[in-house]
């Protein structure tokens, strides 16, 4: 089947043909059973692609939902909120409600942490509390700003590739970013930035085993300026794995003893929650 033939079928199926063209196409279908069969097959093919897309979308939403559930997000009493979706336009009321809600949340959090003081926190809860993807985005923005292109006009250099990959990551276009980072990593296997962000993206996609595989060697590399950040994310990924809590403790212990690590207090806080004395 040639491309023009297929394009015509797809234009018919997507409703892109004008009335006259569509009418002529349908007349041709009536006269030509092969065309009619091909149209039906292409319709099934496109509907199948759509079904796969719907499933992937539902899966992504479902994963977010389950993560929030494990964090206890849905346990709060919804009747506390007096807002209705039929009347949400009064901003002053909204501000007051938000202030009250924030107060209630703060009180609830205080009571919760008071009650939980002596109990080890659930690793999933700790992960949710300390996982800050936005910090990796900000780190990427700084790296992007530091990357300069030395290529000729219109010529894509390796630096451009890395820069573009990080920009795609920053924009949330993870699959495209992964594709470019892989290309860059093949050319520069020792580049820690590409490996780090491959790990970070896999982590954001909840591919924790893959993220660990990428972040572990980096967390041991004294030559890398991203060593401690890799160790932090590695520790968080380990919290998401079965029996990973002890290895996570080792990671956060190292960070808690490193005075040069800016988030040293964060590592201490993770340990206090996971392993209260």
């Amino acid at each position, binding site marked *: 089947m040639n*491309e023009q033939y*297929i394009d015509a079928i797809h234009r*018919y*199926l*997507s*409703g892109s043909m004008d009335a006259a063209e569509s009418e002529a196409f349908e007349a041709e279908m009536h006269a030509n059973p092969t065309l009619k*069969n091909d149209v039906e*097959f292409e*319709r*099934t*093919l*496109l*509907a*199948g*692609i*759509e*079904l*796969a*897309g*719907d*499933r*992937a*979308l*539902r899966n*992504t*939403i*479902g*994963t*977010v*939902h389950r*993560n*929030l559930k494990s964090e206890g*997000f*849905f346990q*709060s009493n*919804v*009747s506390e*909120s*007096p*807002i*209705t*979706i*039929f009347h*949400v336009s009064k901003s002053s009321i909204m501000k007051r409600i938000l202030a009250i809600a924030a107060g209630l949340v703060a009180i609830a959090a205080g009571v919760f942490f008071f009650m939980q003081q002596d109990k080890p926190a659930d690793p999933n809860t700790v992960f949710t509390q300390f996982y*800050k*993807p*936005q*910090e990796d985005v900000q780190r990427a923005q700084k790296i992007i700003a530091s990357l300069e292109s030395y290529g000729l006009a219109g010529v894509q250099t390796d630096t451009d590739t890395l820069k573009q990959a990080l920009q*795609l990551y920053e*924009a*949330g*276009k*993870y*699959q*495209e970013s992964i*594709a*470019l980072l892989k290309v860059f990593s093949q050319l520069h296997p020792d580049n820690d930035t590409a490996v780090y962000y491959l790990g970070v993206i896999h982590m*954001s*996609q*909840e591919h924790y085993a893959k993220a660990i595989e990428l972040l572990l060697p980096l967390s041991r590399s004294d030559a890398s300026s991203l060593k401690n950040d890799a160790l932090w994310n590695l520790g968080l990924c380990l919290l998401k794995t079965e029996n990973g809590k002890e290895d996570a403790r080792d990671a956060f212990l190292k960070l808690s003893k490193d005075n040069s690590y800016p988030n040293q207090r964060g590592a201490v806080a993770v340990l206090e929650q996971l392993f209260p004395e």
Partner: protein
Amino acid sequence: MDKSLTFESDNALLEGLRNSTPAAFEALYRRYYRMVAKQASDQGIPDAEAEDVFQEVLFILVRKVREADFTLTAKLSTFLFAIARNLILKKTGDKKEIATEETALFNLAGRQQPENLPDREMAEAQLDVVAGCLELLEDDCRRLLELSFYERRSQVEIAAEMGYSEAFVKVKKHRCLDYLRKHVKAHPLFKHLQNDAA
């Protein structure tokens, strides 16, 4: 950092939703779930069903914002609440079921919904086969077909996202469709087409 503040504008959120970014969904949960759940609760919908309603709201929202002619004419929250209200009213009012992905699929131009059960089951089984065969393709092929036929992105957008030239997108799209056709036609459910597969 408050995760609900990660997306500071509706446009940033929209872009996140178009790309199915988990953080965008999480931001919507944190900002709007309680309001939707409260409304559902007021209408006598139990908490567990309210959770299902909100998942469906997000699903419909993403499908809408990905439409080629979609323009946000009001705040994103207004749009989200309108979808939620419709779903809640459907659940409580005339008791019509919320459209599922399977029934929605038959809305492609010109398709008659199969009237009898065996035909419908066969049609659904065939779609399952196609969806399964999609998994057999290389990542880049699968992504390109999703961008073309699910997210309905233009060739220019796909070229920018995948780092290809526009001409190559067109060539690769047809090549990937050919791979998919071959896998699908090799399946027993499509045996009537196997003479065409060669």
